[in-house]
């Protein structure tokens, strides 16, 4: 199989999962990618699990929607989306998905009611680690198989350890482990186990109070059937994520901590044999690294005093920006080396304006979908003064 490219990703994949540290702009990248794919004529859905729901803000759709909502036709056309292309957005509500699973899996209406009214269940997202991620996977599966979308892009939740998403089914299952259940749901176990459960029950009664302990027990009893489903699904989900139509995209900013996390993520994904598409280096100054330094020659002969002093002050801003641009280029090269032959390393500019509205997203989408060459490192020059003059000449 030839190496994955961003264009192929947009045109061919059915699921793209964007991963990365918090604050690297995953949501923006997910939305821009979706926009680029919709422009290419695909029916795209973006799911975000970010509690702050930034994507909804950027795309101007309401929060807390039961179903995905497509971008209104006139707004879609304004950003270059034509039929059959379509861009839909949805923000995940774990409780809603969980309720859906409960209703689907349980046949006894009285049991369903008891579970939905159980106080522990009402706090289920606070009770079960990985429930949010787990429901995201469940929802993803549902949307992919619905046939309504050609491509589903999942924006994973930000966390210090973004990896949690990958093993979320395992984590949910850990909590719902039958051995844990036995703590609360006495079975026909041997006598030693029964004695142990009684001790634990006693401790829980002291710590939680008898009423709460009983409610917890009821929750576990009612949730047991759901648990079996969750566990059974785990293998299916793993297979789904390793499949041909799925790609993982590692998003990072140039900040060192974010890059380190991306590398850690990459290693982990390889261990888990997840299909990695490549890296996206977001908010990079690499694009601007070929620009000239502010120099008197950029001004007309008869430039005003104000222009001259403004340009002089601009040099103070330019030097660190140039240095950062060079560092970002080096980083991009490293990302390319790492993905050689297997995937791609793409770079997105640090936009002067905030990427918070459709127009800005559309700018980024252009960067993502164009086949133009990405910034390259210039061969090192011998002398600084000369190179500044040379690049100024080239620019004018």
């Amino acid at each position, binding site marked *: 199989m030839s190496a994955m490219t961003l264009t192929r990703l947009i045109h061919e994949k059915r699921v793209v999962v964007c991963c990365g540290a918090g604050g690297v702009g995953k949501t923006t990248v997910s939305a821009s990618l979706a926009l680029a794919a919709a422009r290419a004529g695909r029916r795209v859905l973006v799911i975000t699990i970010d509690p702050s729901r930034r994507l909804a803000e950027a795309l101007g759709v309401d929060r807390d929607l039961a179903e995905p909502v497509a971008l209104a036709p006139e707004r879609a056309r304004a950003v270059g989306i034509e039929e059959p292309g379509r861009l839909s957005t949805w923000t995940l509500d774990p409780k809603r998905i969980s309720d859906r699973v409960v209703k689907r899996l349980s046949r006894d209406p009285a049991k369903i009611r008891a579970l939905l009214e159980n106080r522990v269940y009402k706090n289920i997202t606070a009770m079960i680690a990985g429930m949010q991620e787990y429901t995201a996977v469940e929802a993803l599966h549902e949307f992919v198989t619905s046939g309504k979308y050609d491509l589903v892009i999942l924006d994973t939740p930000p966390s210090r350890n973004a990896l949690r998403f990958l093993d979320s089914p395992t984590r949910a299952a850990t909590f719902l482990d039958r051995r844990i259940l036995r*703590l609360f749901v006495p079975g026909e176990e041997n006598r030693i186990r029964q004695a142990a459960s009684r001790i634990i029950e006693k401790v829980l009664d*002291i710590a939680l109070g008898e009423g709460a302990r009983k409610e917890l027990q009821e929750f576990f009893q009612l949730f047991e059937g759901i648990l079996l489903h969750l566990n059974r699904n785990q293998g299916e989900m793993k297979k789904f994520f390793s499949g041909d139509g799925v790609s993982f995209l590692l998003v990072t900013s140039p900040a060192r901590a974010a890059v380190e996390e991306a590398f850690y993520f990459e290693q982990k994904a390889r261990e888990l044999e997840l299909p990695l598409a490549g890296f996206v280096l977001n908010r990079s100054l690499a694009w601007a690294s070929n620009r000239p330094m502010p120099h008197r020659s950029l001004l007309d002969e008869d430039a005003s005093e104000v222009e001259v002093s*403004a340009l002089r002050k601009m040099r103070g801003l330019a030097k660190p920006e140039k240095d950062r641009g060079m560092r970002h280029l080096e980083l991009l090269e490293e990302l390319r080396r790492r993905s050689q032959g297997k995937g791609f390393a793409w770079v997105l500019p640090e936009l002067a304006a905030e990427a918070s509205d459709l127009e800005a997203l559309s700018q980024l989408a252009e960067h993502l979908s164009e086949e133009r060459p990405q910034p390259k490192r210039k061969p090192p020059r011998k002398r600084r003064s000369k190179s500044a003059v040379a690049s100024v000449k080239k620019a004018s």
Partner: protein
Amino acid sequence: MSFLDRRIHLVTGKGGVGRTTVAVALAHAAARAGRRVLLAEIGDPEGGYSAIGRKFGREHLTPEPEPLAEGIMGCQLCAIRGHELFVRSVIPAGPLIKAALASKPLRRFLVAAPSLHEMGVLYHILSLLKAKDRQGRPRHEVFIVDMPATGHTLALTSLPAIILDLLPVGPMARAMREGQSYLNDPTKAAAWVVTLPEQLPVSEALELLDGLRSTEMPAGGVILNRVPEDPFTEEERDALALLLDEKPMHGEVAFRRIGSAQISTAHLKQRTSLPVWELPEIFGPGDEEPAFSLADILAPLIAGTS
């Protein structure tokens, strides 16, 4: 009520805004003011690296406070430690605790249920707040917690109310009420929202302030990080804007950021009556700002009343 007069500070904000750096800078500033500072982060139940430890050149931090720098102790808040302390406080020693806590399923249960995880963390925080030295003074005068991303902060600050709703009586309820007596008291505790002078981070910061209010966690203020310096006069700015339209050059991104930062800052100040502390943008190696120089700027701010 100044920063230094309060016992506990939760430093929060979304990923990538420099929250840990700000927490470390606040700790340095408080230590310079002569306070015994405890700087803590929430330990990942699955292990992982220590963001605070790294700022002091070490890989890991332990649940037991250890010296990090002059006047600064550091530790990792650990749910399991909190659970142990809690169980020991409700059940007088003996084989019962040992049997219960040695149970693997119970341990897994405590780790896998997030609210129980938060409860352990909260109990650990409480025990550190109550710790006394030999003279009977608080061992840690100013306790600064680098909180993980937004959602976790609200999970922790809303925990006492959730638990009290589930368990209105009993030892855990007592512990939660004690937690509230610290965290909901503006003379003892404050949350600080770290954000950037950009449109989305500012709107998220405002959202987080609303969230804190709904959990009755008093907010100390907003710390606006990486505010770019503006060296230009108005005429110069106009002239540059015209010039840049025709001729791209280095410094352009920074120049445009100055303008958008001013708009976002004004928007933030208009929407909140809380103090807004501005920290300048300083680029160190690897796009990370040095906490130490930020402490110079924070020192007078944390001493003043706010």
